[in-house]
């Protein structure tokens, strides 16, 4: 957003601030359960997004309480249960908005870091 005041943030704060976009983005592709989300985040970011796994669930439940995702229990053939999270229509709309914000942000950062290169 033009004219936005920014402060220097740590990697931890960057991850914390983008957690909802990351989770929604993963769930947009396919419904997933918590452990699967942790593994997927770690693999796709090549180890960059590695965090305390227990804190994933409060983040998922916040998104669920906000109506952005829904969770359903599914029984596995071995008798164990897993809670799969699905993105909702409200979550899709929120993700589209957040993606646009990220694109603007990345373009602005690129203009600073690589002054000679035109943003794509």
């Amino acid at each position, binding site marked *: 957003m033009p004219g936005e005041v920014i402060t220097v943030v740590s990697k931890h704060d960057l991850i914390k601030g983008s957690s909802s976009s990351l989770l929604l983005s993963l769930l947009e592709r396919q419904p997933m359960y*918590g452990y699967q989300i942790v593994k997927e985040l770690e693999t796709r970011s090549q180890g960059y997004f590695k965090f*305390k796994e*227990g*804190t994933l*669930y409060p983040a998922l439940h916040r998104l669920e309480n906000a109506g952005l995702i829904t969770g359903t229990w599914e029984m596995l053939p071995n008798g164990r249960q897993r809670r799969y999270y699905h993105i909702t229509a409200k979550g899709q709309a929120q993700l589209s908005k957040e993606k646009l914000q990220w694109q603007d942000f990345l373009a602005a950062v690129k203009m600073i870091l690589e002054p000679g290169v035109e943003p794509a």
Partner: protein
Amino acid sequence: MELTQYLERIRGGAKLGPSEEKGVMSELKAHIEDRVEELTGAGLSEQEALETCMGQMGNTKLIARQIYEAYSQGSWKQVLLASMPHLLFGLLFVLNWWHYPGWLSIVLVLILAATAYGWTRGKPTWLFPWLGYTLLPVLAAGIFLLYTPTGWSWLALAFYIPLALWWLFHIIVQTTRRDWLLSTLMLLPVPIITGWFLAISPSGKINEYSIQRLYYFAPWIGLSFLILAATIATFIRLRQRWLRVGLLAVSGLLTLTLVVYHSTGRLATPTFLGLMLVMWGVFLAPPLLERYLGRNRRTTA
């Protein structure tokens, strides 16, 4: 640390309602089982895998706090439901309708109905302010017994007081098992009501003089209930626990000061100090009870 102990610490700190608790704890347990299975598959012993997994999961206090904050904020509908009993009592006094038996009966029936509904529907947070007001009919019945013929009144009270105290203790223990803050929320009006009762009837007996004083104090009594309603509304919307504790403490003390200020000369300093002690009791007894119950649970486990 054992897995059950690890999960119990999270469960104890998250202070969820029965409907949410089972799902959240099962999910965490399933996650740990998946991770332990993966780690043992990679060659670690069961114990090593469990310890590694708990390290990766994170600090129990942090997880519990984040879970609490994910669930603590109530909707606007819950705000309305939770502050309703205080609002009803506030309006009864502000509009001077407290002397109409019809209005009093409606409020009483509403309190009992809402409490019974909430109690049988998973005890949501909005129930606890209503639950506090169910103590009023119990107190009223006790006062009524004082006016039965001498001899009978003492006999009735001898049975009634232990029964009422047992019931009160049972309700407080049940509530504290879930979260001591809900007990405080439930008991918050007690010092306020006691303060106003002493202000209108210093001798403890209700007569013509106390009715006159009740008319005189009615707007201020109403205001103190409306402050409680605003406090509860804010409480329901807050996520952070420390903010909730601070809010109840500040609001309770401010309302008590209002009671004393508007009854100057009728509430002496020792009475004020007594009420402050009751207020401290309301704030300190539930966490102490929770500590005791938690220790007992660990010993029996």
